[in-house]
C-alpha cells in the first residue's frame, strides 16, 4: 500500500482582530488546525470524527485547497499541493473531490440536474453535447438515479436524489480521493442507509480513497477502516475500529464513544 495523501505539521490559524482589540494591541488567534500530521493510504477509508468546531471541516477545506494553511504542508502523491499552479492545479482538482453535507445547498438552484453534470464534463474537455449526454446517463446509472431527473431542478428533487446528484458530480471527473463531509447526516434514516450503501459500493467498485468526515460514530464504524479523532484543532487519537471503540484509553475518545446513542436492545 502506498500513501496517497500526507499532511505534515499543518497549522491553520484565523486572526480575529476587531477594532477594539487593535486599540488594545491585542491579537486573537484561533488555532483551527494545530500541528496536524497524518497520512492516508491509497484505497483506504478514513473516518474523521470530532464535535462541531474541532477543525475537521477546516482540515478538509485545506486539503481541497479552498483555504491557505498558515504553515505546514500537504502532499498529494508526493507533490506539495501549495505549489500547484495552472494545469497541474487543474489536474489536482480533477483527482480530489468532495461530497457535501447539505444536499440541496450544494447544487445551484437555477440549473437542472442534467446541466449540473454536463457542465463538469464541458469544463473537463468534453465539447460534444451528444457525448456529454451519454456520460451523464452512465453517471446517473452509477448512482442509482433514473434518467428523467436530468430536466429537474434541485427544488423538485428529494434530499436523497439531490445527494445522489452531488455524488455523481464528484464522480464525473473520475477522482482518486473523495472527501465526504457529513455526506449522510442531513438525510432521513431510511435514505441515509441508501446513500451509505451507495458510497460503500462505489468505493469498492472504483477503488476510491475516502475521507469520511462525520460526527456520527455509528456511521464511521460501519464505513471506515481507520479513525482519526479530533478535538480543538488537534488529533487526539488515530486507530482502527477496535482501538477507538473498545480499547481506547484517551479520555476524549472515551467520552465520545460513551455519548453515542446506540440501540440498547440487549436489555430486553
Amino acid at each position, binding site marked *: 500500500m502506498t500513501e496517497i495523501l500526507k499532511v505534515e505539521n499543518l497549522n491553520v490559524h484565523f486572526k480575529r482582530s476587531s477594532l477594539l482589540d487593535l486599540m488594545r494591541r491585542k491579537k486573537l488567534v484561533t488555532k483551527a488546525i494545530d500541528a496536524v500530521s497524518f497520512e492516508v493510504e491509497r484505497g483506504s477509508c478514513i473516518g474523521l470524527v470530532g464535535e462541531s468546531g474541532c477543525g475537521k471541516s477546516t482540515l478538509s477545506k485545506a486539503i481541497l485547497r479552498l483555504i491557505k494553511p498558515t504553515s505546514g504542508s500537504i502532499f498529494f502523491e508526493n507533490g506539495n499541493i501549495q505549489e500547484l499552479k495552472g494545469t497541474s492545479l487543474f489536474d489536482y482538482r480533477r483527482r480530489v473531490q468532495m461530497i457535501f453535507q447539505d444536499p440541496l445547498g450544494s447544487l445551484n438552484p437555477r440549473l437542472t440536474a442534467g446541466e449540473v453534470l454536463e457542465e463538469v464534463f464541458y469544463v473537463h474537455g468534453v465539447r460534444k453535447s451528444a457525448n456529454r449526454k451519454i456520460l451523464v446517463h452512465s453517471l446517473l446509472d452509477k448512482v442509482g438515479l433514473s434518467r428523467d431527473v436530468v430536466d429537474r431542478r434541485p427544488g423538485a428533487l428529494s434530499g436523497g436524489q439531490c445527494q445522489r446528484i452531488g455524488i455523481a458530480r464528484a464522480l464525473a471527473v473520475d477522482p482518486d480521493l473523495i472527501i465526504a463531509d457529513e455526506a449522510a447526516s442531513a438525510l432521513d434514516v431510511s*435514505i441515509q442507509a441508501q446513500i451509505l450503501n451507495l458510497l460503500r459500493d462505489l468505493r469498492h467498485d472504483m477503488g476510491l480513497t475516502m475521507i469520511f468526515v462525520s460526527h456520527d460514530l*455509528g*456511521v464511521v464504524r*460501519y464505513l471506515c477502516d481507520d479513525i482519526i479523532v479530533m478535538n480543538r484543532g488537534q488529533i487526539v487519537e488515530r486507530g482502527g475500529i477496535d482501538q477507538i471503540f473498545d480499547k481506547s484509553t484517551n479520555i476524549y475518545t472515551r467520552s465520545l464513544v460513551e*455519548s453515542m*446513542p*446506540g440501540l440498547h436492545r440487549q*436489555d*430486553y
Partner: protein
Amino acid sequence: MMSKLIIRDLTVEIVTPFGPIFPVEQFSLSVEPGEIVGLVGESGSGKTMAMRAVVGILPRNAHIASGEILLSDADNAFVPSSQQSHLRHNIAMIFQNPTSYLDPLMSVGKQVAEPLRFHQGLTRKEARTEAIELFRKVGIHDAERQFDVYPHHFSGGMKQRVLIAAALACNPKVLIADEPTTALDVTIQKQILELLCRLRDETGISIIFITHDLGVVSQLCDTVSVLYAARIVESASTIELLNAPLHPYSLGLIRSQPESAQRDRPLPSIPGQPPALNAMPSGCRFLPRCEFAIQACKQPSPPPLVQTSTVRSNACLRWRELQTLGLNYD
C-alpha cells in the same frame, strides 16, 4: 399535579389552491403522567405538525379538521380541547434550534423571568429569584451570574437549557420536545437527555420527545410511536418496538441503523422514498416500499391502527406473520 394527556383521532388539514392535504391523519396518543413518549418519523411524516396542533401553534393555512385533545386537570377530570387556555397553560414546547427562539437583545435571565411576571403576576424581584431557581434546576452553573448574560455568550447546549427553563417556568404538565438535541454534539446531547430524565423523575412531568433518531429513543423513552406519511404505523413500549417491531417500516428503520450493522454487508436499507403529501398511494402508504406487501394491502383506505395487545397497536395487516420473523431474517 400530574396529568394525563389523551389525543384522539387528530387530523390536521392544510388548505392549498390545489385542494386540501392532510399532514396528520387520525393521530391517537395517550401520555401517562411522568411518561416519556417518543415520536419517531422522517421529515414530513407529520410528527411536528401533530404536536404543533396540540399546543395550538399551527401555521396559518393549517387547522385541526377533527379529533380531540384532552388533558386531565387537578381532579383527574378531563378538560375538553375547546378550552384552549387550559391546554396552553399546561403544555410547553421546546424546539430544535434554540438560537432562533431566544431574543439576542435580551439577557437570558430576563427571557425566563418575563413570562413569570406576565403569567403568574410576580414582581420583578420574585421573578428573578424564581428564574435563578429554574436555571439551577436545568443545570446552569453559577445561575446568579448567568442571569444577566446575553444569548450569544452561550453555547448551543446552554441555550437549549435556557429554553427548557423558560418552558418549565409556568409549571407545565406536559413538555413537548421537538428534536431538541439534533443540532447539538453527541456529548452535549447526552447531557440534555440526562437533564430531561432527571426533570421527569423530580417533577413527574410527562414528556413527548420528537426525534428521527432511534438511538435517542432507546436511551430516553418509555414508549414510542412510529409515524410514516402522516399516520402512526406502530405504537409500543420502546423495548418491545426495538426488539420485535411488528410493522415493516419500523423493522426497516431499525435494521438500517449503521450502529447495529455488520461491516462486511450492505446496510439493509428501505428502497424508494416517502410519498409526498399531495400524492399519497391508495391503501397502505408504505406499500410501494414494502417487502411484505400482498394483494390485500391495496385496499382503498389505509389500514387502521389496531390494538394488538394491551399496550401495542399496529397498522400492518401482516403483523402476526412479522411476529414470527424476528429482526435478523435474510
